């Protein structure tokens, strides 16, 4: 998705008020942004705390600022700068974390971002998790507050049509419960379930923004007493599943059992690709399909 991001920034965000900061990352992705923005593209070096502080100073000066790094270096290393310098000052900076979840796979656990959405939403930062490349443009056009943009891979199957962006989108209709998938896992789940008959699969929703107020009425209506499946490449604490459970409880909405698949960390103590880790957590396409079929 970072190439889609680079194209969007270059095409629509190249004006004198915009700064794009990177923590020395972006090889084979951000070169066109660097060329387009010139001195307003700043490689702040391997110093993420400073990068976020610089961003806050620039934003206080009236600039629109994007801050880019590998996801954990974007939200975890400079956490206090995000909290004190951005959030306490209500600055509409966009933090871009590339490689949400296990996306950096074989790079190892230091490069994974499994608790980023929870950490950022706890600070009141708006959390956006695009599912498809086409989601980037409408997301960037909606930036008015401090935002964390969690980039991953666009995993839409080739024969899947591009759905128009919305924070919640229904990708499949089914009658065996409801499945909510966070970001790119929406495409994975579509590929896993689309060939099942409607009566044998749940309705599939892809969620691209956390926030209990965003849950559409139709989702609640479909939920009824049916099973709720939630899949997310994120730890359980503070993730989509907990957000949903909280909203359902607050609204006293009827709901069947919650089947929650989430990032378990490194249960085998071994490391590998994003696919390897997803499989360990039951988040790969085959595991998702089996989870649904086993309920039949």
């Amino acid at each position, binding site marked *: 998705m970072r190439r889609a991001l680079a194209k969007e920034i270059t095409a629509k965000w190249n004006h004198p008020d915009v700064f794009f900061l990177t923590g020395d990352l972006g090889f084979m992705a951000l070169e066109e942004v660097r060329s387009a923005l010139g001195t307003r593209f700043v490689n702040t070096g391997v110093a993420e*705390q400073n990068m976020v502080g610089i961003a806050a*100073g620039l934003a206080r000066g009236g600039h629109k600022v994007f801050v880019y790094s590998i996801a954990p270096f974007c939200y975890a290393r400079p956490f*206090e700068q995000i909290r004190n*310098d951005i959030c*306490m000052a209500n600055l509409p900076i966009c933090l871009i974390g590339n490689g949400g979840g296990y996306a950096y796979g074989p790079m190892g656990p230091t490069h994974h971002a499994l608790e980023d959405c929870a950490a950022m939403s706890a600070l009141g930062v708006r959390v956006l998790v695009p599912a498809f490349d086409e989601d980037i443009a409408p997301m960037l056009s909606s930036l008015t507050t401090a935002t964390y943009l969690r980039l991953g891979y666009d995993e839409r199957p080739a024969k899947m049509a591009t759905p128009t962006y919305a924070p919640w989108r229904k990708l499949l209709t089914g009658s065996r419960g409801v499945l909510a998938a966070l970001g790119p896992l929406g495409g994975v789940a579509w590929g896993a379930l689309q060939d099942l008959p409607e009566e044998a699969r749940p309705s599939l929703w892809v969620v691209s923004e956390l926030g209990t107020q965003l849950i559409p009425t139709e989702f609640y209506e479909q939920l009824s007493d049916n099973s709720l499946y939630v899949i997310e490449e994120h730890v359980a604490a503070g993730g989509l599943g907990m957000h949903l459970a909280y909203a359902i409880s607050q609204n006293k909405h009827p709901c069947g059992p919650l089947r929650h698949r989430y990032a378990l960390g490194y249960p085998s103590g071994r490391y590998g690709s994003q696919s390897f880790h997803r499989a360990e957590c039951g988040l790969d396409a085959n595991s998702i399909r089996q989870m649904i079929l086993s309920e039949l």
Partner: protein
Amino acid sequence: MDIQVFEDIFEKARMRLLQLHYDSQTGHLGGNLSCLQALMALHHISMKQEDSFILSKGHAAGALYTTLWSLGKISDQELSTYGAEGTLLPIHPSGKGIPGLLFATGSLGHGPSLAAGLALSAKQRTQPRHVYCVCSDGEWQEGSCWEALIFAVHQKLDNLTIIIDQNGLQGFGTTQDVISCSDLSPRLIAFGASVHQASGHDSTSIINALGQRSTDRPNIVILNTIKGKGTHYEGQLESHYLPINKEQYDIAKASQRKRPVR
């Protein structure tokens, strides 16, 4: 402004700061007194209207609030709420509700980056704004300060002046005992900054140092100061934490300013 006029204003501010800490029975008086003269000189003489200021050593909020009070930006009534329930003036600044406060500070090591960002913004817009940031000396044990300095030197942010209150005392010891560093100058020079020293208790020395401006690199003014200057516990670690009682308050009020100190 005539220097004697300034000295009179400063003395009133010093008295008000002492009263502020006595009335509120709050600590951190030592680090407030060590930088008050610089904050006053900066705001009354050196800074222009378009300039920006960040208090990175947020624990000196009392000195900043008193300075803003001396400028008429905080009323005496508001100042009297310092540290109390429902105040706009917490013991470390919230960054909100008071003109001139741009960020919440108190966790050390944030100010230099924020100031560098503001300075870069002004450069980009070719604005004449100069950005000032006051730090403590112990604060430079935070790696983020050096990250910011590396950045500011690389970006040639000559519209940035960082002022370091070098009183030599930190939270639980002297800077010499804790990190074997009683003078930051050689390290700051090695990183490429333009560094000047001044006595932090001599108005002329402060003003002269603030007037030294590089044309191709960030400026740093190291103020040699005494923590808790003019109090019964000046130069002692106790001045970092302990409030003053009536007898100590009277001693501090009666003390005469000594200058220069080094």
